[in-house]
């Protein structure tokens, strides 16, 4: 049974204790790599390591087997230190077929470990992957440690007692591999076995085959002469805040945050959406939460989706809509309606690569312009962003709070990376979050028609009157309204006044949000690295490492993109230089220049991949070089 002939055997491979490791699982779309990755994640999280993940799957649903564009990968970075990104370069690559090797090898760090399933390295598969020669037989892998295993036949062997077809039996390959990896990194099989049992409760033979494969992979590591070829790594638990934890994706936390926000606002949640990558999971998750009274409406398009949410808000519920770039573009006109009728609404944009259809499954931060400036007329609205899966929960609640308190649509920017990545999350206690119940007009005051545009002098928010309430009958619409009566008005001065009031209302939110804090570093100095959204992780890691090296650099992470926190201008002007890394061509840079006339150094990347820590580190170094003297 021992098919092993590790090329790296000549090198001495020792048992090693590591601070952190990055593993990339890569295989065919049909090989179940996302599942393998997420189960490894669970087990790793249970062991107390900090971690971050990056699922990287193809645009095709199921591309033909064995092709490079059908490769699905899952990367996990875990460690005993603070982990904020999925890691720049994998230390370990698991390649289930030649195509996976072809696509992923470039990511691996020099000297990293490659585990391949030789059973999948048939001539046909090599061809499909575009290899002219077998890379296991030439010097393609010279710079790496390689472990070649015929995982396919070992899996068939392990599950043969269950009498499955060969095709079905081979489906357990990923579990065999997972078993080996669990052994290699000293993680528990138990949670996965339990999960398999419950998942395949109705198909026990499948559950048993998978468990057998998992155990076989694990046993292989333990019992074969592996010790000569493979190191076992030990990664201790991370020092984290005490509390109850679980792993979450940004889609999960976003859905929960919306449910929590609606509850805190004491409103019915009506979620109108139309499927689109990578926003759909929020729709799916909320559709599954009917026991919370959540209404989800899968509309015929994005326009109907947002309009249904606006209608719900008019009816006294909390309307929420969600999409990604192209869909948000379609909602533009209706967003204007929500702005001018001053109805609460949360609009979630899960950004992806643009322009147009662009790169649906890749991540980007290029819809900030659209969020802040992208409407006809003078149409300001608050824009918030979220920086990590766990953060979505709180930002969603904050978006609901601002929408309801200020009677305004709120744009919430997240992205494909945050939506799909998983991280350990300390479960919050919802009871500890202060509720912000919406208040509705109860009865008419004053003479004449009820005026729905009476304003709270403090927030400038208009009053909210729910259809069904006697005496508060009123009409609203997209035409300009009189400041005094709320009726249609074509008056010149009134339009000026209303435009100013709408602007002042949104600007006034700056008084209701936290002051800008420094994420890492000092409140002034040589260089501030300013980011927003999902670049939080790599920026924070980069700044932290550069600080450790003695550089005077700080990290400022902006969550509130419109209006900016009141102190932001002063804070930023306290640094000699401001660098802005963004996964776009400089959109936050524009905002900072517009608002503060602030010179900034943009660091832009639009390759569909998150920033590497080292990219940011070297940009920091470059910008502090002159100053280090």
């Amino acid at each position, binding site marked *: 049974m021992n098919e092993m002939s590790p090329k790296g055997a000549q090198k001495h491979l020792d048992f090693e204790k590591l601070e952190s490791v990055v593993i990339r699982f890569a295989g065919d779309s049909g090989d179940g790599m996302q599942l393998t990755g997420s189960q490894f994640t669970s087990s790793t999280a249970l062991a107390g390591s900090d971690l971050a993940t990056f699922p990287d799957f193809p645009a095709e649903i199921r591309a033909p087997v064995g092709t490079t564009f059908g490769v699905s990968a899952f990367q996990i970075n875990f460690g005993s230190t603070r982990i904020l990104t999925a890691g720049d370069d994998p230390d370990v690559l698991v390649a289930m077929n030649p195509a996976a090797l072809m696509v992923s090898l470039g990511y691996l760090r020099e000297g990293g470990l490659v585990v391949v399933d030789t059973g999948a390295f048939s001539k046909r598969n090599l061809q499909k992957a575009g290899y002219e020669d077998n890379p296991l037989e030439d010097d393609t892998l010279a710079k790496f440690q390689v472990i070649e295993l015929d995982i396919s036949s070992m899996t068939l062997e392990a599950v043969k007692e269950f009498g499955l077809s060969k095709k079905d039996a081979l489906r357990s390959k990923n579990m065999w591999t997972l078993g080996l990896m669990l052994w290699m990194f000293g993680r528990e099989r138990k949670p996965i076995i339990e999960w398999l049992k419950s998942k395949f409760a109705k198909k026990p033979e499948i559950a048993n085959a998978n468990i057998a494969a998992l155990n076989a992979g694990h046993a292989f590591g333990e019992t074969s002469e592996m010790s000569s070829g493979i190191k076992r790594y030990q990664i201790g638990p991370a020092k984290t805040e005490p*509390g*109850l934890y679980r792993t979450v994706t940004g889609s999960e936390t976003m859905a929960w945050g919306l449910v929590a926000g609606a509850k805190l606002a004491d409103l019915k949640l009506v979620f109108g959406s139309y499927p689109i990558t990578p926003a759909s999971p929020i729709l799916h998750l909320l559709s599954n939460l009917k026991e919370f009274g959540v209404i989800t409406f899968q509309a015929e398009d994005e326009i109907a989706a947002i309009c249904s949410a606006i209608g719900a808000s008019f009816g006294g519920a909390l309307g929420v809509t969600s999409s990604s770039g192209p869909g948000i573009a379609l909602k533009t006109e209706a967003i204007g309606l929500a702005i001018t009728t001053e109805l609460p609404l949360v609009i979630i944009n899960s950004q992806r690569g643009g322009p147009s259809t662009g790169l649906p499954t890749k991540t980007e931060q290029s819809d900030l312009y659209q969020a802040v400036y992208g409407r006809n007329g003078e149409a300001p609205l608050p824009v918030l962003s979220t920086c990590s899966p766990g953060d979505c929960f709180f930002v969603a609640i904050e978006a609901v709070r601002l929408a309801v308190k200020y009677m305004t649509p709120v744009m919430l920017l997240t992205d494909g990376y945050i939506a799909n990545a998983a991280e350990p999350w300390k479960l919050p206690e919802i009871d500890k979050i202060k509720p912000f119940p919406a208040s509705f007009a109860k009865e008419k005051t004053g003479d004449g028609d009820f005026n729905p545009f009476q304003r709270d002098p403090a927030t400038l928010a208009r009053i909210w009157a729910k259809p069904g309430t006697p005496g508060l009958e009123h*009409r609203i619409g997209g035409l300009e309204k009189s400041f005094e009566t709320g009726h249609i008005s074509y008056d010149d001065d009134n339009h000026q006044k209303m435009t100013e009031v709408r602007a002042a209302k949104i600007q006034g939110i700056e008084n209701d949000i936290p002051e800008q804090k420094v994420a890492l570093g000092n409140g002034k100095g040589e260089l501030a690295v300013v980011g927003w959204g999902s670049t939080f992780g790599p920026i924070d890691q980069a700044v932290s490492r550069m600080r450790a090296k003695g550089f005077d650099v700080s990290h400022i992470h902006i969550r509130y993109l419109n209006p900016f926190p009141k102190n932001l201008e002063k804070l930023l002007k306290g640094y000699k230089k401001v660098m802005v890394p963004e996964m776009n061509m400089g959109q936050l840079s524009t905002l900072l220049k517009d608002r503060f006339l602030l010179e900034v150094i943009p660091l832009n990347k639009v390759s569909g991949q998150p920033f590497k820590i080292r990219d940011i580190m070297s940009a920091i170094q470059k910008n502090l070089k002159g100053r280090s003297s």
Partner: protein
Amino acid sequence: MTEHVSPEKLTAKDFASDQEVRWCPGCGDYAILKCLQRTLPELGTRPENTVFVSGIGCSSRFPYYMATYGFHTIHGRAPSVATGLKLANPDLDIWVVTGDGDGLSIGGNHMLHTLRRNVDLNILLFNNEIYGLTKGQYSPTSHLGTRSPSSPFGSIERPVSPCSFALGSGARFVARTIDTDQKHMPTVFKRAKEHKGASFVEIFQNCIVFNDAVFGEFTNREAAADLQLHAVHGEPLLFGKEREKGLTLNRDKLALEVITVGQGGKTIDDVLVHDETNPILAQMLVNMAPPDFPVVLGVLFCQPAESFETSVTKQIAAIIKKKPGASLDRLMRQGRTWEVKA
């Protein structure tokens, strides 16, 4: 529907807002407005439970003139706004007012999906076969050859028939009436309101400024008897001054024909009886057009089914019953969690 039946009886005045009506003098919209203001109190409607939702167009100014709740939304999107509103509060009595441009040009898709979903909305489509508000361009219902600012040499687009479209979209209530017919309109509005589910009502409405008398062929007093047929469920499809003419089915051609009772050996038994539950009959009635056929008015099709918001509400209620006392704290803790000790 929780209608607070109150002691005082409301009148048309209670449904008229204090806003000055801003349609062209002589516009057919006035007659529809008056009719609804008069009819709603008769149906026991309460202004506070009633919402008029509209898009953009002359017709879509309607909500401003009703002393009910109202939302003048954006062009073509009224059905979507109304759907969200109905989901948020199924107890409201919601009327959608739209035009042939608003509801069938830019808004055609929402109309389709609202009808097939069968959302409980009363949809009034004011068909004047023209874009009134934007000063008279031809619309998707304008007949071939319509001269307008954007078709100075005559339009070359085949029009859509609103009721055909509604039937093809799966509407379960389709009716037709005329702005000037103050006797017929209320009967249709009443049926529309009673119908639980999406009610689609096409109203032939005269735009005196840009498309005057486009329906004159069958709406003028003299022609009315011979070119209007008022369909009533269970009654024979008769028309004519003496109700002497009727519709019969030509089985070979699978098409309707006009016969005169008492002529050519035809008796009243040869006349088809209106069955508003038959979608094929409805389609045939919709297809008829002057001068060879009368225009059929009234409820052409009505076959109720559970309305969308009812299904939504029921599904949620069933799940809440199954999983009572939902707790987000519990939900979030359901996954595989671990404790980090201090």
